[in-house]
């Protein structure tokens, strides 16, 4: 909790752009920043204050009981791979990589099921988005990089 309060407070102060002159572009964000600092302090204050009778009932740990580092990594990698493969090789590899890596995150996955799933979604996705919705993304290219 303290971290959050500090984080928001810091955010507020670092983002003070411009001066509150006659409605410059910085006025509104500055106001927001100040408010955020206030609220951040208000949230952090009870956490900073010595807790009266050992109120430990709130476990403020950021991590859940079973951190799923691998799954989180897979999910976050999924759009990244989509960007990389989509930009360089086109829609089919992009989609395949995106679905494939995301499905690897689940503990019950098998290589086979992931590949099958990724293939099915790729076929479906290309048909839907490329042919029906005309998304202007090359289906297959090589190293064009847009």
């Amino acid at each position, binding site marked *: *909790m303290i971290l*959050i309060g500090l984080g*928001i407070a810091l955010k507020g102060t670092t*983002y003070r752009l411009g001066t509150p002159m006659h*409605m*410059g*572009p*910085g*006025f*509104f*964000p500055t106001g*927001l*920043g*100040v*408010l*955020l600092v*206030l*609220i951040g302090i*208000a*949230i952090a*204050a*009870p956490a900073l204050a010595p807790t009266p009778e050992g109120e430990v009932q709130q476990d*403020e740990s*950021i*991590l*859940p009981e*079973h951190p*799923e580092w691998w*799954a*989180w990594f897979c*999910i*976050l990698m*999924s*759009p*990244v791979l*989509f*960007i990389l493969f*989509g*930009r360089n090789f086109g829609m089919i590899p*992009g*989609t395949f990589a*995106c*679905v494939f890596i*995301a*499905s690897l*995150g*689940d*503990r*019950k996955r098998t290589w086979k099921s*992931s590949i099958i*799933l*990724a293939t099915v*979604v790729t076929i479906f*996705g290309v048909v839907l988005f490329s042919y029906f*919705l*005309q*998304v*202007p*993304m090359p289906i297959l290219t090589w190293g064009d990089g*847009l």
Partner: protein
Amino acid sequence: MIHTAITDLLYGFTVALEPHNLMWCFVGVLVGNMVGVLPGMGPLATISILLPLTFGMKAVPAILMLAGILYGGQYGGAICSILLNLPCHPPHAVTCLDGFPMTKQGRGGVALGVTVIASFIGASWGITEMIFLSPLLVKAALQFGPAEVCSLMLLGLLAGSTLARGSPLKGVAMTLIGLFLGSVGTDLETGSERFTFGMTELDDGIELIALALGLFGIAEFMSSVNQVAPINTRYTHVRLRDMRPSLADLKKAFFPMWRGTIVGSLCSLIPGTGPTIASFVAYAAEKKVSKTPEKFGTGMLEGVVCPEAATHSSIQGDFIPTMSLGIPGDAVMALLLGALMIQGIVPGPQLISQHPDIFWGLVASFWIGNIILVILNVPLIGIWCKMLAIPYRFLYPSAMFFVCIGVYAANNDFFQVGEVAVLGLVGYVLLRLGFHPAPVVLGFVLGPRFEENFRRAMLISRGDFSVFVTRPISAVFVGMCVILVGTQIYVRLRAKGPAKNDTGHTDASPPITQQMAPQRIPVTPAE
């Protein structure tokens, strides 16, 4: 007035019944219903994922479809909570209390059947309310100057952030972050860049879809991956024959239905109190009115019907401020409004007169959509139940693809796909810390307009802040803000002082969100 309302409504039906619009309404309702049944996918995630699909459409079918997803999802959620004891969406958490015991007694079919009827009545009432109240509101709103608009938005933002789930203070913090994110990009009046960190891609601001998909899509997947337990489908064999309620059941359900409807519509009139609060208040009220309050929780039909009717009437009611004033009450409404803005339509009081096809078409489509839902739900419940067997591990990777391609298709820009990933991570961290991301979207959508009106008001008053208090209409809104914040502080202080002996509305937050029961000292935002 009634005459014009009827002609307008008839016009709306002609719009909504155009084959093209009707088809998309049907698609929206169907998808919403389907996804509503699936645990782990709320209407927010669904609407954000399907938002990009609407870019290629005209405005009317787009908004009809998105609205259809919303109320279709509510029907689906009811199925889920009655048959599986899984409150997929918070408004249905109370329905579980009596709905699941009914299922265990083998009366799940009846519960579903009556729920469909109750929802329909609730929704119809909400729609009627919308028809008559919206033009009135618009008439009033057209006289608003920037100062009034500004304080009204302030009220909407405050209500949306403090009355929603979780700690009000954190809600306000989230709204502020949303406002801040909304100010990223080129400044409207001076054209200078703000918070772009030298990235030209950020000049146009952060994309609403990227924000919504990051916060409600990716963050959701991250928190529920490997967490979704296999579902007990023991009770899901409901046959069509079981769903027909007996005359006695209908009689028993009749008055609770109307009571729920009234409660729901009242709740929708208070800004910020969405369907969740409505359903809890309705359940509590029904228990008070009942002759046998001790039987609640053991499978009382009244306990299912009343909150469901309340949910539906309040959802329709939520559209009133969204469509007539351009002030959304919660994140779902903010997304719908965002969808309209993407179509190039400026929300606000002028919407009804400038785009009558959208407004009245939407109103008429509510009715058509609800009828479609009643027809759909009866034969399809068995199929929905089968859908529950789809494992999450197939679901979320496919959804990931939709997220990626959807964001890409919005502007054909890979940069925004990266935005989604970053925002998803941020959203997940916030979620873990007890900050609910919904108010962020609210702030984000309203932010630029808030700033614009704020500046305009300041310009007119020559930098005098008292303009918000000296203009009467504006003063009323500011006063309501103060009351809102004041009651929050009062309730909190009282809950802190003596033991919680008061089981009033304040305790009526859903069990899911209670894990983050707030115990912080609220501070009046320095106005």
